[in-house]
Structure formats: C-alpha cells, structure tokens
C-alpha cells in the first residue's frame, strides 16, 4: 500500500482508502476522489510541494500532506 506521494509521474493506481481529518475527506470526496477511483499522477509541482493527478478527464491539484492521505493500490 502506497499513497499518492509515492507515485511516479504517469503511474496509474486505484484509490483504496482515504485518511486524514473528516474535513479533508469531505473535500476529497467532493472532488470525486473516492475509494475505487482510478487515478494517474501527472506531475509534482515546483519544489515537490504539490501534486497534480488525473481523474478521468479532469485534473486535480493536491498538497503533499493531502496526497499522503490518499492510499492506493497500484495497478
């Protein structure tokens, strides 16, 4: 089990579990990041502070500590 933080650019994965405080989870689920969803890491932002992932046809930006709360199964 890894998190979005450990993905390499262009690597695909499936969300297995969300962690973190409820407020963050709400936000993530509202953006469509829910267990079972397939995602791909697009890039890390300058200085490794943020992550851009692709979910279906849309792109989502995340901070490092948020990315660390999205647990994945590699596919």
């Amino acid at each position, binding site marked *: 089990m890894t998190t979005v933080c450990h993905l390499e650019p262009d690597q695909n994965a499936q969300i297995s579990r969300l962690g973190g405080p409820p*407020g963050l989870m709400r936000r993530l689920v509202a953006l469509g990041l829910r267990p079972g969803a397939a995602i791909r890491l697009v890039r890390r*932002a*300058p200085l490794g502070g943020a992550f851009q992932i692709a979910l279906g046809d849309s*792109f989502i*930006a995340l*901070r490092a500590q948020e990315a660390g709360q999205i647990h994945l199964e590699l596919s």
Partner: protein
Amino acid sequence: MAALATARAERLLVTVGNPNVGKTTLINAVSGSRFEVGNWPGTTVDRLSAHCKLSGRSVEIVDLPGSYSLAATTPEEKIARDELLALKPDLVVDVVDAGNLERNLYLTLELAEMGLPVVVALNLVDEARAKGLTIDADLLARELGLAVVPLVASRGEGIGELCEQALRDNPAACPLVAYQPCIEAAVEELGALLEGAPERRWLALAALSGETVRLPLPVAERSESLRQKLEAEGVDPFLEIAGQRYRTAHELSQRVLDRQQAPPQLTEKIDRWLLHPWLGLPLFLAGMLLVFRFTFLFSDPWIEFVGAVQGVLAGWVAGSALPPVVQSFLADGLIGGVGTVMAFAPVLFFLYLAMSFAESSGFLSRAAFIADRVMHWAGLPGRGFIPLMLGFGCNVPAIYATRTMEDFNDRLRVALAIPFTACSARLAVFVLFAAVFFPAQATAVVFGLYLLGLAAGLTTAAILGKLAPTGHSSGAMELPAYRLPTLGLTLRQAWMRTFAFIKGAGGSITITVLVIWLLLNVGGGKPENSLYAQLSQLLVPVFTPLGVTDWRLVGALIPGFIAKEVVIGTLGVSYLGSEPVAALGLMDGLQQLGQSFLTACWAFLNAIPAMFGLPQLAPPAPEAPDGLAGALGTSIAPAGAMAYLVFLLLYTPCVATVVAIRQEFGRRWASFSVFYQLLVAYVLGLLAYLVWPS
C-alpha cells in the same frame, strides 16, 4: 375564478419546466409585465397567468408550477400534471435550462408522450455559454421533432421568435422514447382501450408505472394485471420506463452538446509548460506583469479623459457668477469627489477584464497551484496569492478578488494583508521622494518599499492565522480544462463588477472628498489659516519622533486618505500655492471635451501595439509641479523622508479600499484595518527613522 369570468382567449399557452428555469421571467417578457398572481384552487401554490395580445390575437398564458417530471411526486408536480391534462392548451412552452440539458429533457420527453403541441424554450443560454456549453439548437429541434427557440429571457433575447412560434399551429409532439418490446406491447394494448385520448400513450405508461392516474375502471384493471404480469416476468415497469427516459435524455444531450474546452491532451500540453517545475513560477510572474501592463496601458487614456472632463467642468464653474466659496465647493468638492470615483472606473474595468479572462479560461486555478507553496508559510491557500498580487495594481479590485477563496477566515486574512501592498498610486509618490532624497539609490528604495509592504501584509496574515486558526486550509482543487471565454460575457462581467463598485462605493468616496474639502476651506482664505492647517499643526508633535516636523507634509497625509497619489497634489498646493482655475466659456469647454475624447481614443488604440513593446510596470509618475522637488528637499532630512515614505506605504488604506473591505467583511473589519494599519505604519516609520543613517 377570474380566468373563468373573462372570455377564453383565442389561444391558451402554458409554460412548464423545472423550478427556476425562468418561466416567470419568460411570461413577464412576453406579456410585458401584465400578469396576475393568485393561488391554484385549494392550495397555497402560486398561480400566475397573463392575458396579452400578440400580433393582434388575444393570448392567455398560464404558468404551471415548477416540475422535474409529471410523475407527480410533489404537490406542485401534481398540479402541473393535472392542469396539463385538464386545460388542453393550444401550445405547451417547455422551458428548458440550457446549462442543465440532460435533467431538463426528461420532462420534455414526458411532454412529448402526452401528445400535446410543444415548443422548447431553450432558456439560460448565457449561463450555459459561461459554463463553456454550446447547444446545437437546430440539431436538438431535429432530434426532438419540435421547434426549439434559444432564449435569454432575463434580457428579452429570443422573445420575439418565441412569440411567433406561440401563434403558429404546431402539430402534436411525437413520442421519442422507445421502450422494451414487452412494455411497448402493454402500452399498445392499453392505448387501444383509450382510443381517442391524445394523451393515451402517456396515460398507459403512467398506469404501468403504478402512478395514480384517473382511468376508466376496465382500463385501470387491465393495466394493473399487465403490470403484475410484467413484474412476475422480472421486469419492474416503473424502473424500466424511468430508466429508458433517462437514457434517451442522456443520449440526446450528448449529441447536441458541445463542451467548448480544450481536449484533455491539449490541456495537458499547456500544463506541461505552465506548471513546469522550474518555468512555472517565472511564467506566472510574467503573466502577472502582463496583466498590470494591460490594465495601465488601456486605462490610462480614460483616466486622463476623466481628468480633462473635471478640468472643463471646473472651468465652467469658474466662469459662472457664483460666489467663490460655492465655486470652490462645486469644483473641488463635488466635481473632485465624483471625479475621484470615476477615475477608479477605468483601472477597475480593465483589471476585472483581465481577471474575468483568467478566471474563466482556467489560468487562475493554475496560478493558485503554482503559488500554493509560496503562500503556505503564511498559512494561506494558493488562491490568496492572486488577490495579493493584484494589490500591486490597485487594492480595490484585489479586495473583491478574494471572493474566489472559499474559507471566510482565509479571505479576511488576505483582505487585511492587501492594503499593505504598494499600489500604483503610491508608486507615484515613492518615485518623487526617491528622486529628491535618494537619487543614487532611487530604484533600490522603491523596490525595498514594495518588499516591505508585501512582508508586512504576509506577516499580518500569518499572525492572524495563528490567533484564529482556520479549519484546515485545503489545497485540493480541480484544475479545469482550458477554454476560451466568450468576449461578450467577459466584457459584461467586468462592466457589472465595475458598476457595482461605483454604485456601492461612489457615495462614501464622494462624501469623504467633501469632508476634506470642508477641512481645507473652513477658516479663512489662506491655506495656513484653514482648519486643515490647524489640524495638521496639531498632529505635528505626533510625527516629530519620525523626523517629520513640517505641518505641510503631515497634513498631506489627510487627503491622502482619498487616494494616495493626492498627496503629491496637496504638497504642491501647500508648498507652492494653487493656481486659480481659468474660466472657460461654453464653446471652449465643449471643444476641449471633444479634443480630449479624441486624444483618449487615439491613446487607447496606441495601447494595443504598446502591449507588445518594452515592459513597464506602472504608468510614468505624474509630473511633480515645478519647484516641488526643491521645496521638499529643504523641508525634511533623508531619514525623515524615509520614515515618511514607510508611513505613507503602510498607513490607512485609501477610502475606496476601506469601502471595499466594509462591503465584503463589514464595518468592524474595515475599522480594524484602518487602525491596525495606522499603528503598524507608525511603528515601522519610527523604526525606519531610527535605523536610517542620517
């Protein structure tokens, strides 16, 4: 009852549609606001109807309650369904939200099954376009076999064509949804029993779905047995029918909808550059510079024009037979006050234009992504960076731009930080002082002041964040696909925001200017004797620790509250005396107006090629009155001048900014901002005086 009393109109129209799609607005536009409001019999649901003449024919329009479907799951839907069946209208106007086509089409498909003549009023086209959706209305009309009229009901667009359609004898709509064979067979059997009723297909489907509809007993019994038979076969007719309608609506909307966005591949390609680990930030900063350049180049001619109009009006006043005090009140007070407000309008308009574009094209979200890291140490989300940067152009739109942030506390913190950033008006003053006192290091001094302002703002935000920890400032956000916003919509959005500022803040700003006029003019003819001079002299001891001992310098800070660049003009008047305004004749004035308008237009056109010339951060500093530089040099020492500049940078936001804060966050925070900044300005000014080598 009223409807029964009057003779039935030649044509009866009903409007149907989901709630809030603009049915009432549409009836209002068609009937010219002549509608009656009552209740549907035995309910508290509003009944709205209108009688009007269209091309000489009398027409009655009845607005049916908002409904998502005709399955009558709410009292409103029940009324809508029963009235549709009972009224037998000559035409059903199905009002559809163009921005939400799929859900709205469900009702359209049901209406088509009722066998009524239907025309589709495709409303809210403007909002759909703003979402980047275009609908092929012709294709939709062909697919549905119905007339489709695109509309913006709130602005009356398309109403003419709708009225034409309303008078045409449209044929009954044909059903569009094909169900499973077993359902179709049942519908046919029931339909045969209902021979003659145009709505028989809809009735049969409703009965099979298990809805309560009024049917002749044998038909009701037959439908119940058919329903049970289907269920025994493992088919739930309700689910089948609803599902098939939704599928049809989905497929239809997919065919006629064009999402005007860059395909994901293109979006990714652009992002490869804009979100590049190293190039991203420089590109983003260059973009910000371009926004400022655009704003100043295009707004400057119009600001000058406002000034020219003010000059002409003042000249006319000077040429009138009014007593001098009244002349001064009109020219400096009233015209000056309104002119101050109007001079803000061009800057705001062009800055808003750039912002609207950035917002709806998708660039704004990228900028937030890039800046997130930088903002993080102040405990702020990346979205706060843009309002802060905008503050360097003008604080006022920057305050309003905080609206793009979600969390109230975050918004407030950014808004309180913004007035510390050195707007372009302050730049003019800095340039003048730097040239007089620090000719060798002028650029460094100005740049240092910029940094000081930004640091003071960010520190404020960080401290407030520590005092009142926000929930959890989240950086997670969608990066929408790029798209090209429509010009008309962007222009209108920018204009509406500018207008809102003029309407909301214009009064307060004008009053402030009038109060300051009063200060300057009460108490004798000479400036030295005015209330203003006396007040300034009272304040001198307060500023003495900062090395500022000349009452004229202290006093200039008071009108600086109107707009920071006013400080220069005030200093000019109090050091050098004011020149009397030359009287202007009517014709001369008109000629001057015409000329300055042409000049403004010409300068505006010239701004287009200038956009691509050499970069320039702000407009050139206004020419200081001759001799002011020399007079200033003798009235204060460099250390005092430094303290004065620091104070000027940080003290009370200008009145327009204060009004903006009040509008967005309330009176309490506006006052807090005023006093807090005075304090910070004083303390840092004092520090500057003590630290600066004299």
